[in-house]
């Protein structure tokens, strides 16, 4: 095989190569070191300090990773690392940054969560982040599989961390769905390897292998679709979304918030990279008359429809947010499918704002849980007058998730819809237009269920003799939620602050 020959270099050169590449992977190394130290710390730290100590350690690791990432700067040209298994470019950098931000928020959110969280919690969380950080860079089928699988294994365990029957059930369900998805993906990868003889999706052999006339069309498409199924599972796109509501409901809240952001965004980046290599070799697929936009667009539309319509019927807020995040996945996927500059910008903008919105939403759910002891809409009756600040914050977040001004949620949707329009009107597929129309139409449905929460807070009367459990407590979470809501408002009025950051990245 031609591609394997350059890799059978002397051990010395390989090691040299690895050492050369390591500085570019310092953020991941910092996270890994943090994960190892967290396991060690669990053994050493005295019990009363364990939780705070480990949280501080994780924050330090993530902060360090962020610092190293930013210090490293953007690569002028795409670089291939570790024997062409990783591709470091602007796409990877942007999504690594988002993943780290989401990880940092998850740790900040966890600080006051469970006094008795196991030490492994933080180690697993950091492990998940390492994997989610590698996903946007992975350009080799093997590494793609490894990073997705590592993220998944950490995620299964974290889901079960809330303990009890529900946690175990959620973890198991997630595991079963996840195992099937990864098996399917692996099968697809093995087929692709069989067709091309290489694992490196950036390699010429990969493209030429698929182009080769010896290979029948249908198996290639099937293989590609099987691989995509694995990614779509991570992004929770219909019909690979079934795990999400149960996992969100069963997992600890910071983990649910993390699930809805870090692995999802990393999965999007992976999808984008994978597709872009297929699009580059678009010739083949044009020849096959196979339209990626069509099939993935249909899935995105299905996600928007099913996510939004199912959310309407939910009574448990966590399940509601899970379905809402499925709907948002549909929108994010639509952003990917534009395959134009404005589309990538809109996608990044939406991702950044979505991250803020979702964390704010889960933090508020956590505050309300602490006050009322429940997660059901019915538990929220009449809280508006008793918890004025929290309730106002809930309104802000719900308005943002719906995409109404004056919140950045609106700006994000505006850019996304603009990108879809622009993509369609400059000769794109008609699918983009349908995506746009679905996105707009489902916004009305979204308004209906997002409004339900303020509706219960303000317009339903509290039951007689209802007692709040911890009035005034949870200061930390309130501060965090206020901060995120503040950002959601500020980024509406100063959208240029986010956009200027995004403009630093050039994604093709």
């Amino acid at each position, binding site marked *: 095989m031609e591609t394997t020959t350059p890799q059978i270099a002397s051990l010395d050169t390989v090691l040299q190569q690895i050492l050369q590449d390591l500085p570019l992977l310092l953020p991941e190394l910092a996270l890994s070191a943090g994960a190892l130290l967290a396991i060690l710390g669990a053994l050493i730290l005295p019990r009363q300090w364990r939780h705070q100590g480990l949280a501080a350690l994780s924050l330090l690791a993530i902060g360090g990773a962020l610092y190293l990432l930013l210090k490293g700067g953007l690569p002028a040209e795409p670089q291939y690392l570790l024997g062409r298994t990783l591709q470091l470019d602007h796409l990877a950098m942007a999504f690594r940054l988002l993943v780290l931000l989401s990880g940092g928020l998850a740790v900040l959110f966890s600080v006051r969560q469970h006094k008795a969280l196991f030490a492994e919690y933080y180690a697993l969380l950091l492990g998940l982040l390492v994997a989610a950080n590698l996903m946007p860079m992975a350009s080799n089928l093997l590494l793609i599989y490894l990073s997705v699988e590592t993220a998944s294994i950490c995620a299964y365990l974290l889901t079960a961390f809330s303990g009890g029957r529900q946690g175990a059930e959620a973890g198991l369900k997630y595991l079963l769905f996840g195992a099937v998805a990864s098996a399917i993906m692996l099968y697809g990868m093995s087929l692709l390897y069989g067709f091309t003889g290489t694992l490196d999706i950036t390699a010429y052999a990969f493209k030429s292998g698929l182009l080769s006339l010896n290979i029948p069309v249908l198996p290639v498409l099937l293989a590609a679709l099987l691989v995509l199924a694995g990614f779509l599972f991570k992004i929770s796109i219909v019909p690979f979304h079934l795990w999400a509501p149960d996992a969100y409901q069963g997992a600890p809240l910071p983990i649910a918030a993390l699930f809805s952001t870090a692995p999802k965004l990393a999965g999007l980046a992976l999808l984008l990279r994978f597709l872009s290599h297929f699009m580059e070799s678009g010739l083949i697929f044009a020849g096959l008359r196979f339209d990626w936009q069509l099939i993935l667009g249909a899935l995105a539309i299905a996600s928007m429809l099913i996510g939004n319509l199912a959310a309407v019927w939910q009574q448990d807020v966590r399940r509601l947010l899970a379905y809402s995040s499925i709907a948002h996945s549909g929108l994010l996927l639509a952003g990917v499918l534009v395959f*134009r*500059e*404005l589309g990538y*910008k809109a996608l990044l903008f939406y991702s950044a704002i979505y991250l803020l919105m979702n964390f704010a939403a889960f933090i508020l759910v956590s505050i309300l849980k602490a006050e009322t002891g429940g997660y059901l809409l019915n538990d929220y009756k009449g809280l508006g007058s008793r918890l004025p600040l929290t309730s106002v914050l809930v309104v802000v977040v719900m308005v943002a998730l719906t995409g109404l001004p*004056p919140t950045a949620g609106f700006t994000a949707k505006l850019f996304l*819809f603009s990108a879809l329009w*622009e993509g369609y009107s400059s000769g794109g597929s008609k699918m983009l237009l349908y995506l746009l129309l679905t996105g*707009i139409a489902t916004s009305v449905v979204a308004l209906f269920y997002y*409004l339900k929460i303020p509706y219960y807070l*303000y317009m339903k009367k509290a039951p007689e003799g209802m007692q709040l459990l911890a009035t005034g407590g949870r200061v930390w979470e309130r501060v965090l939620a206020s901060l995120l809501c503040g950002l959601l408002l500020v980024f509406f009025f100063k959208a240029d602050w986010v956009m200027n950051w995004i403009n630093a990245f050039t994604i093709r």
Partner: protein
Amino acid sequence: MALQHHLLTLLIFVPLLAALVLLLLPARLAGLGRWLALAGTGLQLALALVVWIGFQSGITAPAGVFAAAGFQFVEKYNWFHLPLGELGYLSADYFLGVDGLSASLVLLAALVMFLGAISSWTITQNQKGYFALYLLLSSTVLGCFVALDLLLFYLFFEFMLLPMYFLIGMWGGPRRAYASIKFFLYTFGGSLFILLAIIGLYISGIDPEATAAMADLPLEQLQLSLQRGALESRDMVHSFNMLHLMDVDNLIPGSMLSLRGGGELWGYSARLLAFLALLIGFLVKLPAAPLHTWLPDAHVEAPTPISVVLAAILLKIGGYGLLRLPYSLIPEGGIYFAPLVAGIGVFSILYGAFNALAQSDLKKLIAYSSVSHMGYVLLGLAALTVEGVSGALYQMFSHGLISAALFLIAGVLYDRTHDRLIENYSGLAQRMPGFTVVVTLVFFASLGLPGFSGFIAEVLVFFGAFRSPSANGLLPYWMVIVATLGLLLTAAYYLWTLQRMFFGKFFVRRPEWEVALQDLSPREWGMLLPLLAGILLLGLFPNLLLDSFSPAVETFVQEMLSRGRSNLVLLTRFI
């Protein structure tokens, strides 16, 4: 700082400031809320009067409408300016201004918000929240009428829904939850159509001034090189500036909503579809049958002051929006769809009137009468004659005063008995003579008796509509003739109601109401008298209002017809 240069900003932000002060007050001072609301809206009204007095009107005044130079009290600052790579730049402005189309509505909005604040005196539950939301509402409403940037307009247009939702949902009647959600969903659904068109427009158009600066070209040559396709896409500055987007020479050739080589969707012209999208969005707000079903619920369940604001101002935003967005931005749509718009108008007039005739709840009757009266706005607008459009604007102002008075009247009764069923009252004239006089006058005004503002409005609308078949051939005669039936029905439901409730033998359903039904209090007189005075004044001296918008309306009609027709020629392949 020269405050007179920031009048419109002050107009928007004074109530918002009052709301912030209110929110910062400690809970024990929450009783000050109503005073703050009064002060905030009072100051807003004073500012609106300053604007009204300072507004140059008459034939010699600048027209505005399509030309930035014709707007008065203009304020323009850059809001954001984003590089978008291949697509050029995106910029939005904080751009405010008043012209003949909006000047009168600014005054109306400020006046009604102030009266609404007085009417809110009876609110006792959670005053702090109520008045903060009320003040927020008055900021956004005023913002809607003066914004000249599509994004800014949309911001105010959408942000208005939120306070309204809570005001109906928390302080409304028994079915408030249903009514408020329905209101929110309908108007939000409508506004998404508007958003779609706005997105299409800003991507299709450029801001010539900013682009000239960016591309380093003289402004005069810019449109020419744009139309020749000589401009690099990277240099184009897309903006939400309404006035720039009204000029088809600022639209990028070949883009979706451009005139030359414009796009199509499913075989229809994208421009005409965009007109329809904007039309639907504002028809929901207006509302026109059959998109009106949120209105009776919202009106009936809302507390009195909110019904007043809803009927007197929020519906006008629908009418004003129609003039400013679909008509001005896509004039050929106004020509092409004139029979459709007029048809919806006529249908609303009749449908609303028939429904009003069948109502047993006084507030619902008034709500349906609003649907009917807004139909006249559509009819006048669709005619695209000077009389018709003037009539539409006049009707908006006049209905603003009359519907405010009507809902206050319903409120007077409801405050006393908590019941609004027409059949539960009879012969009220004997116990409440003052009230009866006011009701009779307002009912007469609403049914269009000469001497009242409603008469002038309806005469102008019918004048304009009847002239349309011969002047510009847009409307058929039969449509206008059918619409006149509405006048008859309106008279019928008002006179019948008057007869059933106020005349005849005194009777009320419950004995305790006999004590409760006292004549108007000084506060109620204080709200109703200025409205009555306004209604009469405008009925006797129409020039007070007509002067303010005549130059704008003339330009509007002239340009609509000429631009619309020449644009339509370029779209013939679709027709």
